[in-house]
C-alpha cells in the first residue's frame, strides 16, 4: 500500500515552510530513518526522515518550493512490488480508527471528580472538624518550641515512615533546639543530620516522599529554602498533577520564617506570600503553641506537600496546649482569636502579636475589634474573613511581608469579591515596608509593622 509523506511542522506554531532540498530521487529505495528531504523556515532547517520503508514513488512538491503548508502531501512512498501508478491512489499515513480500550494504567487512575473553583484547594471535609477538646481538659503551658518538638515526636511514634532531616537536627539538637531529644529517642536513621546542601537534601527528601516515606525537612531558616525552591515547587508541589494523581509528595518543609532580630536583609524575609502562590502546596503559619502542635501533627499526616512557617521570635513564647493523647487541628480553618463588632483585623504568625496588642489598645479607645488568626494561608479560610466583614464592614490586614502581591493583597481581593456591598471603608493593609531588611536597629524597627500602625489603620477605616 502506498503512503503519502506529509509536510512536517518544526514547531506547534509553524503553518508553512520551504521545501529546500530533496536528498532522494524518485525510484530510490528508502529505509525507515533515512533522511529524504530538508525543509526550512525563517528560524530553522530540519531534515525529514522516512518513517516507512519502500520506494520513493513520486515527488509531489519539487525542491525549492516556498510556503508549503504543513500536512501537504510532499511525496509518495510505494511498498515493495507496487508501481508508480499506485502513487495516485496514495492515502495519508495517519488513519483514524476508533479506540477500543484504554491502557490499563489509565483505567486504574480514574477517580472521583470535583467541580472547578477559582483557586485550587484540597477537598473540604463534609462538615468542619473542630478538635474534640472535652470540657475540663487539662491545659499545659509549653513553649512553641516544645509544642513543635512534641508534635514531631508523637507523629514519629505513630508512623515509622515519618523521619526528620536537616542541618544540625540530630547531634546539635537543632539550630533553634526544635528537634531537641529526637535523636535520643529515634536514633540516627530517623533523625538525620545533613550536610549544608539545601537544594540536594530538599530534593532527596522529595524523592523519599515519592517513594512513600513521610519526611519532615527542616530548613535552618526559610531564607535558605530559596536554594531549594526548584525542588519544592517543580518536584514536590507539581508532581501529583503532572502524574494524573498517581504519585505525590507527602512531605513537610518546616523552619523559622520571617525577620529574626538584627540579622539584616538576607536572613530576614517572610516567604508567606511566595509559597501561598503555588497550587499544590499547603501553607501553614501558626501564632501560638497550641496551633503549632495541632497543625504540625495534621501537616505530617497530610498526603500533600506542606510548607510550615515558624517564627524564631515565637519559639520561646509559652501558651496553653490541651493535654490530649492526639491533639490534631484542621488545616484550612482560621480561628477567631477575639470577638468584636467594629473592625476586623486579620493576621497570622507573629503578625498576631501586633494585631492582639492593637485590639487591646483600640478597646481603650472605644473600638471593638474582631481579630482573626488565619493559621493556614493556603487553602485560605475566606469564609471566616467574609463572615466577619459582613458584621464589621471594615478590615485591616497585618503581615510582616512586603506589600506587593502579599497576603494582605490577596485578602483585599477576596473581600472585594465576597463582601463588596458590606464594606464601609477601603480594605487597609499593614505590612513590612517595601525595602530589604536594614541592619541598624532603628531602621529595622521602621521596616517592620508596629502596634501603632495597626491601631492607626483600624481607626482610619472606622473614620476616627
Amino acid at each position, binding site marked *: 500500500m502506498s503512503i503519502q509523506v506529509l509536510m512536517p511542522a518544526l514547531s506547534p506554531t509553524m503553518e508553512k515552510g520551504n521545501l529546500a532540498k530533496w536528498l532522494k530521487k524518485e525510484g530510490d529505495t528508502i529505509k525507515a530513518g533515512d533522511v529524504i528531504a530538508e525543509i526550512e523556515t525563517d528560524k530553522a532547517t530540519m531534515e525529514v526522515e522516512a518513517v516507512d520503508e519502500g520506494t520513493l514513488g513520486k515527488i509531489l512538491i519539487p525542491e525549492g518550493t516556498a510556503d508549503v503548508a504543513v500536512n501537504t502531501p510532499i511525496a509518495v512512498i510505494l511498498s515493495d512490488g507496487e508501481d508508480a501508478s499506485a502513487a495516485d491512489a496514495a492515502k495519508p499515513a*495517519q488513519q*483514524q480508527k*476508533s*479506540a477500543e480500550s484504554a491502557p490499563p494504567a*489509565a483505567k486504574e487512575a480514574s477517580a472521583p471528580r470535583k467541580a472547578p473553583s477559582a483557586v485550587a484547594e484540597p477537598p473540604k471535609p463534609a462538615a468542619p472538624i473542630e478538635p474534640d477538646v472535652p470540657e475540663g481538659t487539662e491545659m499545659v503551658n509549653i513553649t512553641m518550641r516544645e509544642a513543635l518538638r512534641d508534635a514531631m515526636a508523637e507523629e514519629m511514634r505513630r508512623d515509622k515512615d515519618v523521619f526528620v532531616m536537616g542541618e544540625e537536627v540530630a547531634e546539635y539538637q537543632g539550630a533553634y533546639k526544635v528537634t531537641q531529644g529526637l535523636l535520643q529517642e529515634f536514633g540516627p536513621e530517623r533523625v538525620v543530620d545533613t550536610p549544608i546542601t539545601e537544594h540536594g*537534601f530538599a530534593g532527596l527528601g522529595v*524523592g523519599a516522599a515519592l517513594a512513600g516515606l513521610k519526611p519532615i525537612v527542616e530548613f535552618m531558616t526559610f531564607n535558605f529554602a530559596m536554594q531549594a525552591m*526548584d525542588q519544592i515547587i517543580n518536584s514536590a508541589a507539581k508532581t501529583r*498533577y503532572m*502524574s494524573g494523581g498517581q504519585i505525590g509528595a507527602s512531605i513537610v518543609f518546616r523552619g523559622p520564617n520571617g525577620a529574626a532580630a538584627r540579622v539584616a536583609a538576607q536572613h530576614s524575609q517572610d516567604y508567606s506570600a511566595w509559597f501561598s502562590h503555588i497550587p499544590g502546596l499547603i501553607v501553614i503559619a501558626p501564632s501560638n503553641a497550641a496551633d503549632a502542635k495541632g497543625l504540625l501533627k495534621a501537616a505530617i499526616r497530610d498526603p500533600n506537600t506542606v510548607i510550615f512557617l515558624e517564627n524564631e521570635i515565637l519559639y520561646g513564647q509559652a501558651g496553653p496546649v490541651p493535654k490530649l493523647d492526639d491533639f490534631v487541628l484542621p488545616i484550612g480553618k482560621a480561628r477567631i482569636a477575639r470577638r468584636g463588632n467594629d473592625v476586623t483585623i486579620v493576621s497570622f504568625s507573629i503578625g498576631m502579636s501586633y494585631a492582639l496588642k492593637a485590639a487591646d489598645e483600640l478597646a481603650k479607645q472605644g473600638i471593638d475589634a474582631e481579630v482573626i488568626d488565619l493559621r493556614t494561608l493556603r487553602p485560605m479560610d475566606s469564609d471566616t474573613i467574609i463572615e466577619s466583614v459582613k458584621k464589621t464592614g471594615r478590615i485591616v490586614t497585618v503581615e510582616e511581608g512586603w506589600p506587593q502581591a502579599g497576603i494582605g493583597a490577596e485578602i483585599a481581593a477576596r473581600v472585594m469579591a465576597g463582601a463588596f456591598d458590606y464594606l464601609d471603608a477601603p480594605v487597609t493593609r499593614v505590612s513590612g515596608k517595601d525595602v530589604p531588611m536594614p541592619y541598624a536597629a532603628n531602621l529595622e524597627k521602621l521596616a517592620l509593622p508596629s502596634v501603632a500602625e495597626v491601631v492607626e489603620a483600624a481607626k482610619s477605616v472606622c473614620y476616627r
Partner: protein
Amino acid sequence: MAVAKDKAQPSAARRPDKPSEQGSVPELSKEQSVSAYRDMLLIRRFEEKAGQMYGMGLIGGFCHLYIGQEAVVVGMQMALKPGDGVITGYRDHGHMLACGMDPKGVMAELTGRQHGYSRGKGGSMHMFSAEKGFYGGHGIVGAQVPLGTGLAFASKYRGNDNVSLTYFGDGAANQGQVYESFNMAKLWKLPAVYIIENNQYAMGTSLARASANTDLSTRGASFGIPGERVDGMDVRAVKDAAERAVTWCREGNGPMILEMLTYRYRGHSMSDPAKYRTRDEVEKVRNEQDPIEQVRRRLLEWKWASEDDLKKIDAKVRDAVNESAEFATVDPEPDASELYTDIYAQAAR
C-alpha cells in the same frame, strides 16, 4: 584510573577511549538477544512514530526523541528486579517503554489525551507509573538526581535491597545538585546507580565545549564513588556493567556511576536544526554502531533467528506502535473538569 580507590571497588572497570575499542563482553543468550532486539526496536519505532505525529501537529510542546540510545535503557533494565526504581529527565519515552509501560498510555499522553499516563496533564516530559516503579519524567535538567537519590534513601530506610537507577545526560552532569547528591549518596551509602547518558551533546553544545573534565565516569572521584565508562551502543556491555553496578549497590557498598557512551541520531528536540554537527558524523555512528543493527547482525550470523523471524518481530512491533498512534489520535482530550483535579490528595480523616 582516576577514580578514588574504594575498598572492594569493582575491579573490572573498563574504560575504552572509543566504544569500538572495548574488550570482550559476555554474550547474551539467544532469548536475551531476541528480547533486547524487540525492546530496542519498539523504542525506535515508537520514537519514529512520535516524530511523525509531532510533524502532523498531534504532539505539542517539547518532544525529545531517544533514537540511537536504545541499548542504554534496555541493557540497564535487564539487571533490575521488582521494587527497584527508575527516574530520568525529559528524554524519557525509551525509559518508560523499557520499564514495561503501555505504549498506548505513553502515546496518548504525548498527544494530551484523557487515557494518557498522566491523563493528559503531564505530556512528553512528565509521566509516571507507580506500578512499574517509574518515577518520572522530569523537565528541569538535573532535578531528577536528588530525587533518585531520595528513592535510594527510601530503600535504605526500609532496609530492603532495592536500588534506584537515576539517569541524566552529559549536560545535567554539570548541575550543582548532582554533586550535592553524590556527596549524600556516598556519605550514607545509598543504593543509587547514576547512569550518565553521554550522547555527546547538551542540546547544541558538545561535551568538550561545556565540561572541564570530559571523562564523566570520574565525576564521583572526589566523593570516592567508583565509575565505569561503558559502550552504550552495545546492549551486552550495558547489561554487563548494569549487573556489576546493581550488585554493588544491593550489597550495601553505596552508589556507583556508569557513563554510557551513546549518541542521539535526532536533534535535541523536534525544533533542533542540528547545525552543530555534520550529517556525516550522524551517518557514521548510524552505519557502524547502531545498537539494534548490532544485535540483528548477531542473531542472523549465529542463526538464532532467520530473516523471516525478524520480519515477524518487526511487524509485531510496528503493529503495537501503530495501535498506540491510532489510540492516541482518537482518544478524547481530558474533560474540562480535569483542570482542577489531582492538585491535592484528600487527607484521611
